[in-house]
C-alpha cells in the first residue's frame, strides 16, 4: 500500500431534489481519504448514503457541495480516463453476449483489436477461475459465476480502482464466503484500490483494511475502524482477531442506531 491518495473526498454534501418537497439530504459534510492499494468498506444502515457516496466517486453523480478527487484529478476526468471499474449488486451482464464478449465490452469501447481482446478476456476468465466458460451465455451460469464475470469485466482494462456496490449481496452464504477469498486474491494479484459497499458486518471485517461506518439522515461518517487480519484464509473466520474486528464494527453500528 502506498502513501499516495487514490481518493480524496473533501466537505462533500449531496442533496437530491434540492428545494422541492421531496428533498433528501443524502450525504452531509463527508471527508474521507483512501490510499492507493487500500481496501476500504462502506457500511451502515440501509438508506444512509453508501451507494450515493460510491456513485460520487465514480462520477455517476455530482456532489452538491465539496469536491471528489480521484488519482489527483476530478472524478469526472477519472471517469473519462477510465481509471475505475464498477461492479453492482446484480451482475448486469448483457444476455445477448457470450461471457467472453461481456468481459470484452469495455475493451471494445476502448478500441482494442479483436485478438488483444480475446487474449485479455481469457486472462480474466483464468483470474476469476472460469477458464472454460467464455463461450457460454450469462443465463447458463449461476449467480455466483455471473458475479465473477462481472468482476472480470470490471478488471479487464486493469483499472487502478474498483468500485463495488454490494456485489455479493444476492449470493448465498457459502458462495459469498468463497467469493470473498477470490476477491482478496485478485486484489493482491492486481494491486488495485477497492471501495466496497456492504451491509454485512463479517464481510466488512474480513475484507477490509479500513471500515467506514456511516450514519443516516443525513449520511455522515460516524467512525472509521482500522482492521489488520494479515493474510486471510478460510480459518481467519474462526480467529479471535476477526471476531474482535467484527465486534468493533457491530458496536459502532449499534451506536449509530441509538443516535436515531
Amino acid at each position, binding site marked *: 500500500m502506498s502513501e499516495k491518495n487514490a481518493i480524496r473526498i473533501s466537505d462533500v454534501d449531496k442533496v437530491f431534489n434540492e428545494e422541492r418537497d421531496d428533498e433528501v439530504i443524502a450525504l452531509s459534510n463527508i471527508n474521507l481519504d483512501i490510499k492507493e492499494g487500500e481496501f476500504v468498506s462502506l457500511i451502515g444502515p440501509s438508506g444512509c448514503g453508501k451507494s450515493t457516496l460510491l456513485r460520487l466517486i465514480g462520477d455517476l453523480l455530482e456532489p452538491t457541495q465539496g469536491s471528489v478527487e480521484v488519482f489527483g484529478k476530478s472524478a469526472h476526468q477519472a471517469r473519462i480516463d477510465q481509471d475505475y471499474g464498477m461492479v453492482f449488486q446484480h451482475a*448486469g451482464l448483457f*444476455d445477448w453476449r457470450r461471457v467472453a464478449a461481456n468481459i470484452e465490452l469495455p475493451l*471494445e469501447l476502448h478500441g482494442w483489436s479483436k485478438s488483444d481482446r480475446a487474449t485479455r478476456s481469457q486472462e480474466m476468465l483464468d483470474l476469476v477461475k472460469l477458464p472454460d466458460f467464455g463461450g457460454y451465455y450469462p443465463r447458463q451460469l449461476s449467480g455466483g459465476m455471473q458475479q465473477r464475470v462481472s468482476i472480470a469485466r470490471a478488471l479487464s482494462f486493469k483499472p487502478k480502482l474498483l468500485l463495488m456496490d454490494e456485489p455479493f449481496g444476492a449470493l448465498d452464504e457459502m458462495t459469498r464466503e468463497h467469493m470473498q477469498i477470490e476477491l482478496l486474491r485478485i486484489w493482491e494479484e492486481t494491486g488495485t484500490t477497492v471501495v466496497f459497499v456492504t451491509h454485512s458486518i463479517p464481510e466488512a471485517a474480513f475484507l477490509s483494511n479500513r471500515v467506514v461506518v456511516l450514519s443516516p439522515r443525513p449520511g455522515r461518517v460516524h467512525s472509521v475502524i482500522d482492521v489488520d487480519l494479515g493474510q486471510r484464509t478460510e480459518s481467519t473466520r474462526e480467529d479471535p482477531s476477526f471476531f474482535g474486528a467484527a465486534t468493533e464494527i457491530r458496536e459502532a453500528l449499534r451506536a449509530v442506531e441509538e443516535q436515531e
Partner: protein
Amino acid sequence: MKSSKVTRVFFTVSFVIFFLVLLWEGYKWMGQQTDDLWPGTNFGLPIATNDTIMPHFVDVVGELTAEIRDGRSSMPMYAFLLKKAWFTFQEAAIGFILGLTIGMGLAVFMSRWKVSERGLLPWINVSQTIPLIALAPVVVTWGRNQGLPDLFSISLISTYLTFFPVAVSGLRGLQSPDAAHVELMHSYAASWRTTLFKLRLPAARPYLFPALKLAGSLSVVGAIVGEISIGRKTGLGRAILEYALRYAIFPERLYASVIGAAFLGLSVFGMINLAERFFMRRTREVVS
C-alpha cells in the same frame, strides 16, 4: 431450423387447414339438410350455406387452377394471382421499409429527448385514428401532383400503417435496459451513439420483432386498400375488388383471390420470421 421442426410445423399447419375445411364443409352440409336452421329448431343459421355464400372448398381450390382471361392472354388463376400478388408485394415492401425507417427514426428521436416523447407520442397515436379510406385519395392526389408513380403513393399508405407499431414498440424497446446497464455504459464514458448501438438497439430486439410481424401484415393491408382506393389496375387489391363486384356470379373467384391475399400475408410474415431468427440467433441458442 432443424428438419424435425420443419416437419412439425408442416403437420401443424396441415392439420389446422384440414380442421377448418372440415368445419366449413360440415356446417355447409348441416345447413343443406335443415334449410339453414339450427337442427331441431326454428332458429336460422347465422350464415346461409348455399353455393354462392359458401362455395365448396374443392370448387375454390379448383378455381385456382381454372384458366381465366387476363387481357388478351389466358392463364391459370393461381398464376394470375401470383402475378398480381407480386405487384402488391413490391408496394408493401417499399411501404414496410419506409415505415420501419420512419418508425425507428421516431423511436430513436423520442428516446434521445424525453421532451420530444411527450410532444410526439400523442400525435403518433392520433395519426392512426384517421380512416384509411379518407387518407388514401389525399395521398394519391398529392402524389400525382408531385409527379410520383402510383406505386409509390400506395407504398406511402402502407408506410402510414407500418410506422406506428414500429415507433411505439421501438421506443419501449430502446427504453427497456435497466438503469444499471445504462449506468455501466456511462461509467465507460460511452457516448450516446455507442450506448445506442451496443446496448439500446440489441436490447430492443425482443420488443421490435413482434411489432415488425404486425407491421408486415399491415403493410399488405395498406397496399391492398391503397390499390382499391386508387383504382390501380395491377395489384391483388384490384383483383379482389373486381371479383367482389362479380361475387354473385363467380363466388369461388373471390374466395380464390382472398386465398391469394392470405398467401401474400403469410409470405411476408415468414420473411420477417426468418429475419428474426437471423438477428436473434445468439440469444436463441440459449437453452434455459
